[in-house]
């Protein structure tokens, strides 16, 4: 079965896919999301819309996805398990599918202690693998988790994330296998900086044959500054930034650091493209969305398949 997702169409055609992301604004104004979207127009096959990332309150992923849909994008709506129980989750899936959102990315979500409301109560009624199962069940069996029949199945291309750099390393491919078995059709990985480790992970992924069961998109993030690289290394859980890259940025004259960051990013894209089983890249240029077209063009990935 094929959904109406453009991302799915591109991946199925065998083209190397490119996705990026738009973080919704911290307010009710849609201008910010339109502005970010305008940079990406024509450069991506799908655009992720984050769901209160790092547990900071933002415009809902659902609403921002609709704004981007209106602009002609194929939104990849992210959904975390932190803030909704199974009732809200299934309801939002129906709502999203009803209004033309055809990609859902299933995540656990950062713990709320990282965000702006650390005193909040969390939900975690189901986990990300069970969320994948839930979407698949709703779509393929036309059933709610309760077993009751759905009238009008949600047409959703199911995505997930995996962090090859988190611990324990040796089960990270197995965990992706569980996600594939649960029904995930594509995965976007955590930002790849340590290509060597990523290649090792991909080897395990191929050994398990997961690359034949789902599309694997490597996460790519350009460094804007030395400070950002350091921050990602030390303060973001599960992030692997090799010391060599930080040194390289450090040794670059200050006014050239941003360019060097883009250069590193292009090198990483080049390297991951040669890894067997990689079906595309997912560019997360945090508050640097206007650089994404430049990266995609320089990587020789423009124009996108229509």
């Amino acid at each position, binding site marked *: 079965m094929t959904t109406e997702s453009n991302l799915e169409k591109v991946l199925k055609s065998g083209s190397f896919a490119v996705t990026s992301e738009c973080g919704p604004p911290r307010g009710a104004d849609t201008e910010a999301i339109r502005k970010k979207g305008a940079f990406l127009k024509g450069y991506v096959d799908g655009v992720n819309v984050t769901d209160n990332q790092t547990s900071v309150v933002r415009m809902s992923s659902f609403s921002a996805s609709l704004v981007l849909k209106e602009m002609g994008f194929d939104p990849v709506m992210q959904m975390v*398990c*932190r803030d909704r129980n*199974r009732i809200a989750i299934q309801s939002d899936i129906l709502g999203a599918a009803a209004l033309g959102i055809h990609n859902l990315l299933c995540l*656990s*979500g*950062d*713990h709320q*202690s990282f965000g702006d409301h650390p005193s909040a109560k*969390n939900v*975690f*009624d*189901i*986990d*990300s*693998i*069970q969320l994948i*199962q*839930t979407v698949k069940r709703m779509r393929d069996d036309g059933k709610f*988790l309760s077993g009751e029949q759905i009238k009008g199945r949600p047409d959703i291309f199911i995505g997930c*994330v*995996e*962090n090859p750099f*988190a*611990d*324990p390393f040796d*089960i990270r491919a*197995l*965990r992706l*296998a*569980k996600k594939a*078995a*649960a029904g995930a059709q594509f995965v976007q990985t*955590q930002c790849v900086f340590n290509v060597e480790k990523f290649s090792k992970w991909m080897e395990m992924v191929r050994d398990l044959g997961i690359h034949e069961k789902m599309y694997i998109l490597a996460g790519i993030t350009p460094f804007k500054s030395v400070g950002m690289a350091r921050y990602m290394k030390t303060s973001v*859980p*599960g992030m692997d930034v090799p010391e060599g890259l930080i040194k390289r940025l450090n040794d670059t004259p200050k006014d050239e650091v941003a360019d060097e960051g883009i250069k590193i990013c292009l090198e990483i894209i080049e390297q991951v493209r040669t890894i067997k089983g990689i079906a595309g890249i997912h560019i997360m240029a945090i508050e640097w969305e206007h650089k994404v077209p430049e990266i995609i063009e320089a990587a020789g990935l423009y124009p996108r398949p229509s």
Partner: protein
Amino acid sequence: MIVANRKPFEEIMEMLKPYKKILLLGCNECVTVCSVGGAKEVAVLASEIRLSRLKNIIPVEIKEHTLERQCDPEYALSISSFVNDYEIIISMACGCGVQTIAETYREKYVVPAVNTTFMGSSEEHGVWREKCQGCGNCILDKTLGICPVTRCAKSILNGPCGGSQGGSCEINKDTPCAWQLIIDRLKQMNMMEKYLEIQPVKDWSTSRDGGPRTRIREDLRI
């Protein structure tokens, strides 16, 4: 066991402010074991209160008393002969004990001196960790004795999430990642095939989510 922490002294003094005759009630069970509300801690708190009142020249009369088990109505009744000599009861038991005293002496103002925190166990001297949330449907057989409902910050049943690093949970370095522990144990026991089973969506109706729980054993009722 139930683990608790004593409330800040200022908060306790604020609750006691208008009262001169105070009954300070400890409990000999969990709060004694975790050194927060047994006879020893009752004595310490009582002298702190007396000292503070003395400094501020406000009279106080404190009776120190520790019950065998505050969460048992039978023991709660054992203080009925002198309860009325006091204006307020401050309990150093867990929330269950405080409520039993409040239910037993409905005309009395009963306040807590501790914050009840969790059901846990002692890992080493002076260190307790949360171990169980009483979900009402134990799955420790599947996770080899390590509870992901309680010890994973996100209660993930198919972990670990992408934040697990160096054995620690993403929330802080001092909290072990439950899923790292589970996987270590699975490997040690040669049971990694269990990891591939997807744990289904949990029925939370047996836990607090299903509403306050009551246990009735007809065979034990008189």
